[in-house]
């Protein structure tokens, strides 16, 4: 068990393609870190650099006290779970689990003990003598997990381990991995493109975009105080509404409507207003500080309904309790404490 320190790490490929750009993350011992971002954001490359499967162009990666930039993958004391599981097809489940230990010269009795323990935890006991091709997707996923567990490494690396599973199994495995990690308290780095996985599993989320870090924070921090318009739109479902607005004399103006800010600072000039669907409500009382919204269509979600419409010309989604009265036009209020303002040019939070 160890901290993993990533310091100003960059990765360039031939032709000056910069896949990862000066990323620094300090991962605590036992922490579950999720790297999340759209495809091509460099999250997998970063993970593979920690694993030693990609060389580091610039910067330093430390596992514990040891700088591992030039250390072979097998000697980094890490275990990795791959997206397509990468089980050895010619070996039985037992051999798959034992392979890494055998090559490290672990005594036979110790190997047997750890394989038995891991297969008990992962409920693989009855499959130990099967080949991977005789297993279902979920079982293969468990074997891949087991292969990592038996090693008792300093850190687990997960490369989108759930993306090949169907939706139901994914939710189940999500919980299992999280519980397992809690129990073993092994430092983990988990890569996913699914913000829901990031939100539900992470101790801290690292949002990556175009090879650089947009924000590092706990799921709630990232959700409640996104540091950029990108993070705001990427984290949360439905995505946060981003509306073109402007500041005029301390007031926030959208088209020809004005939003009450309850004394919050609003700089002059063009702005991007971010507001989550659940941070708006139907207006009551007189029209003071209300904005008018035209309804396009409604998605019924059971517990709530998601209303899609336009605020002046800007698209907007609004979450209302199921059974709330609807008409073609709605008068709504925005929660002034839950509004996010971004610089429309840089995308940074103001």
């Amino acid at each position, binding site marked *: 068990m160890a901290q993993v320190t990533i310091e100003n790490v960059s990765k360039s490929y031939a032709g000056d393609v910069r896949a990862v750009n000066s990323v620094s993350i300090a991962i605590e011992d036992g922490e579950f870190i999720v790297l999340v971002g759209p495809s091509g954001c460099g999250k997998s490359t970063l993970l593979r650099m920690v*694993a*030693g*499967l990609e060389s580091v162009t610039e910067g330093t990666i430390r596992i514990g006290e040891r700088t591992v930039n030039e250390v*072979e*993958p*097998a*000697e980094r004391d*890490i*275990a*990795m779970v*791959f*997206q*397509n599981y*990468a*089980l*050895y*097809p*010619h070996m039985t489940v037992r051999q798959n689990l034992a*392979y*890494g230990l055998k*090559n490290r010269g672990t005594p036979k009795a110790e190997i047997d003990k750890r394989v038995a323990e891991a297969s008990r935890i992962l409920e693989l006991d009855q499959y130990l003598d099967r080949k991977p*091709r005789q297993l279902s997707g979920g079982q293969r996923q468990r074997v891949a997990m087991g*292969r990592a567990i038996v090693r008792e490494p300093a850190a687990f690396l997960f490369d989108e381990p759930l993306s090949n599973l169907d939706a139901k199994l994914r939710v189940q495995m999500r919980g299992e991995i999280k519980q397992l990690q809690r129990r073993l308290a092994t430092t983990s780095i988990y890569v996913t493109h699914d913000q829901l996985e990031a939100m539900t599993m992470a101790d801290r989320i690292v949002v990556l975009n175009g090879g650089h870090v947009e924000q590092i924070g706990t799921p709630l921090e990232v959700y409640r105080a996104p540091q950029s318009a990108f993070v705001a739109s990427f984290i949360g479902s439905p995505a946060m509404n981003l509306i073109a607005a402007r500041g005029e004399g301390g007031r926030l103006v959208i088209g020809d409507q004005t939003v009450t800010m309850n004394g919050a600072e609003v700089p002059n000039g063009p702005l991007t207003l971010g507001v989550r669907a659940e941070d708006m409500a139907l207006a009551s009382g007189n029209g003071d500080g209300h904005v008018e919204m035209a309804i396009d269509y409604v998605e019924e979600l059971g517990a709530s309904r998601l209303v899609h419409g336009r605020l002046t010309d800007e698209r907007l989604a609004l979450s209302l309790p199921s059974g709330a009265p609807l008409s073609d036009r709605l008068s709504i209020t925005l929660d002034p404490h839950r509004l996010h303002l971004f610089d429309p040019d840089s995308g940074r939070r103001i």
Partner: protein
Amino acid sequence: MKRVQFSSPYLPYLFLLPQMTVVFIFFYWPSVQAIQSSFYLEDPFGFGATFVGFDNYLEAFKSSHYQQIARFTVVFTILVTVFSLSIGLLLATTADTVIRGSGPYKTLLICVYAIAPPVAGLIGMMFFDQHIGPFVTMAAWFGWDMKVGIDYVDTAFAMIVVAVWKQIPYNFIFFLSGLQGIPVSVREAAAIDNRSRLGRFRTVTLPLLAPTAFFLLIINMTYSLFDTFGIIDVIVKDKAANNPITLVYKVYMDGFRGNDIGGSAAQSVILMLIVLLLTVFQFRFIERRVHYN
């Protein structure tokens, strides 16, 4: 799968006919002819035949010349198979790790395969030519007075070298595609689980290449037994004399040069049985130990 219904029950047989005709004319008919001829002593000028039972077979087995050729064929087949497989595998594993210029490199390795066996034999013979052959010159540096076509061992050496050289590209192609069929992530998982390159090759790469290797083993043995005919022909130039030849070449020599149709037919039936046994053995005993996905 969509099932196609033929309007007439005879139509499928009509479609099969061309293939069946080819198989019949070029395989079954000659086989039957060979088996039949092997029991007769035929007049060299075609004036009739006498039934002699198993005499042709007994004569072949008793002949020390035949036994010597059979021994050489075994040695030749084993050496050619082992060397062409292992060199092909070595080249494929190294080519697989080449990143820059791998295209031209692979093409260069493969293009030898496009050469017809007699041409390969000719080119090979030029390497071993008494006057201009670079191999002969090189051998002379080490005090080896190489006399291909005169000395039995030297000729055998040249034959094996040329036969191996000719077969390497074929094995290379299959091994390379086999290697590339191993998922990258499996190799990466192995890199995390095993620090030794050689260990990874032995415990992960090689077992996953086993189906390819098994296929190639059969192909290479058949190649050594039969398809090296052209190479041998060019090297011994139709006059075997004291030079080493394989069983297939002896069939040709006895049948078409010696006009001993019956004896030659008996030898070819023996070869046919050897191949049959070999195939059964390979599929029964070796395939069980091969991992298919």
